[in-house]
């Protein structure tokens, strides 16, 4: 009798698992999704940590993005250079071909832009921006509470001595998380070969800007006239770079009466300069 029970349970268990396994194998064949073989290769080249540093949910989503849309292949931080090389091989891309994008905060105000009121709420740009559009008189200014500093996975953003967020272009990977989080929408992604920026986003009229911020763009148009490659335009009392033909000649930096045009080459050390040349 005892042997009977053992045999019976063995048979039932075996047959149930056999049937389930059989059904699963049929289903696996029937519902097979043909995925791009390149995607599988890219996926295996990625480290598989699913850390999300690239800005995608996991490695699989990033691999899919690489294959289907022309996303940059150097976003994977844990993988480093080796991974980029591997992916470049699979995708037939050259590593140096990739234009590295870096973020730039288009505001230089900080302590040089006047406050409208004393804000004592939560130390977050998001909440500060909800109170009368921020504590600065300039409604386009960087609020300086560092939402972008917190969100940056690479510690590439810091608050500089004037109380404005600034991007370290050596560490920035161009993931764009700061662009999304900034409530003032003054962070922009540009190719790292452009090193001259107009650090102002104010669309107020010149005389107003002059009153509330010492480094704001007053829309005088000197830079537009000066630019030898015509890469600067004036719109809504604000000069801005098209980031198209700029050759970093820095003529506009010299001409700007309020010093709101800044060359990052000047600011950064020599090492950075050589790095930019390599990127070019």
């Amino acid at each position, binding site marked *: 009798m005892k042997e009977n029970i053992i045999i*019976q349970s063995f048979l039932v268990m075996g047959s149930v*698992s056999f049937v389930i396994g059989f059904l*699963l194998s049929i289903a696996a064949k029937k519902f*097979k999704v043909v995925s791009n073989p390149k995607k599988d290769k890219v996926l295996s080249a990625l480290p598989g940590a699913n850390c999300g540093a690239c800005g995608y949910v996991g490695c699989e989503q990033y691999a899919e993005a690489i294959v289907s849309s022309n996303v940059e292949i150097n976003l994977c931080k844990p993988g480093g250079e080796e991974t980029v090389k591997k992916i470049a091989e699979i995708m037939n891309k050259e590593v140096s071909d990739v234009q590295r994008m870096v973020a730039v905060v288009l505001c230089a105000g900080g302590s040089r832009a006047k406050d409208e009121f004393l804000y004592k709420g939560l130390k977050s740009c998001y909440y500060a921006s909800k109170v009368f559009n921020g504590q600065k008189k300039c409604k386009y200014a960087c609020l300086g509470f560092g939402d972008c500093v917190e969100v940056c996975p690479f510690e590439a953003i810091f608050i500089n001595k004037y109380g404005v967020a600034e991007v370290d272009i050596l560490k920035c990977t161009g993931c764009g998380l700061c662009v999304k989080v900034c409530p003032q929408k003054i962070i922009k992604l540009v190719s790292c070969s452009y090193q001259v920026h107009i650090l102002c986003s104010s669309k107020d009229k010149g005389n107003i800007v002059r009153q509330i911020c010492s480094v704001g763009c007053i829309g005088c148009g000197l830079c537009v006239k000066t630019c030898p490659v015509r890469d600067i335009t004036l719109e809504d009392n604000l000069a801005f770079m098209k980031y198209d033909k700029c050759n970093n000649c820095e003529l506009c930096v010299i001409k700007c009466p309020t010093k709101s045009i800044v060359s990052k080459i000047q600011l950064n050390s020599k090492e950075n300069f050589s790095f930019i040349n390599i990127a070019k």
Partner: protein
Amino acid sequence: MKNTSLLAIFISSVFVNNIILMRFIGLCSFFGVSNKLSSALGMSAAVFFVMTLATVVSWFIYNLVLLPLGLVYLKIIVFILVIASLVQLVELFLKKNMPGLFKALGIYLPLITTNCAILAVAFLIVDYKFNFLQSIIFSSGTALGYTIAIILFSSIRERLELAPLPNAVKGYGIVFITAALMSLSFMGLIGLFGF
């Protein structure tokens, strides 16, 4: 269970015997994915889907195979096997036929394989000796109870993020306290419909 009318079973499984707040089953996912309302919705949709399906399959296997052969003691291992492979099957099916839903459920679908609430429902149905219709009502009601609990809880947690809390209860401390208070308030329903 004294009252076995369908409505009574439904109300009982949603509110009176809520799987999370009264039975304390499936707590890991309850605390794990309730930090955002959107992820809570995704998880509860996946639970609803799998719980109802798993109950149907396990009811057939129990009543048509295990019970006639007198192999009831095999139910634990068989149910685990059935649920795990069912989730796998559903995953394959969704990936092919409903990629939109598959993406929406995302990581929560495979997580359900190890969700004890699913297994618990399969066992409870055996314990209560439900017939087929009753088990379907019971399982979908339980899943609905799970949904209600996790949605309420995640809404509270989203607000807790912004609340000024003492350091001692920050993070999971206040989360556990909140869950306990919710459970207490659900206990007020004991006795409804004679359960």
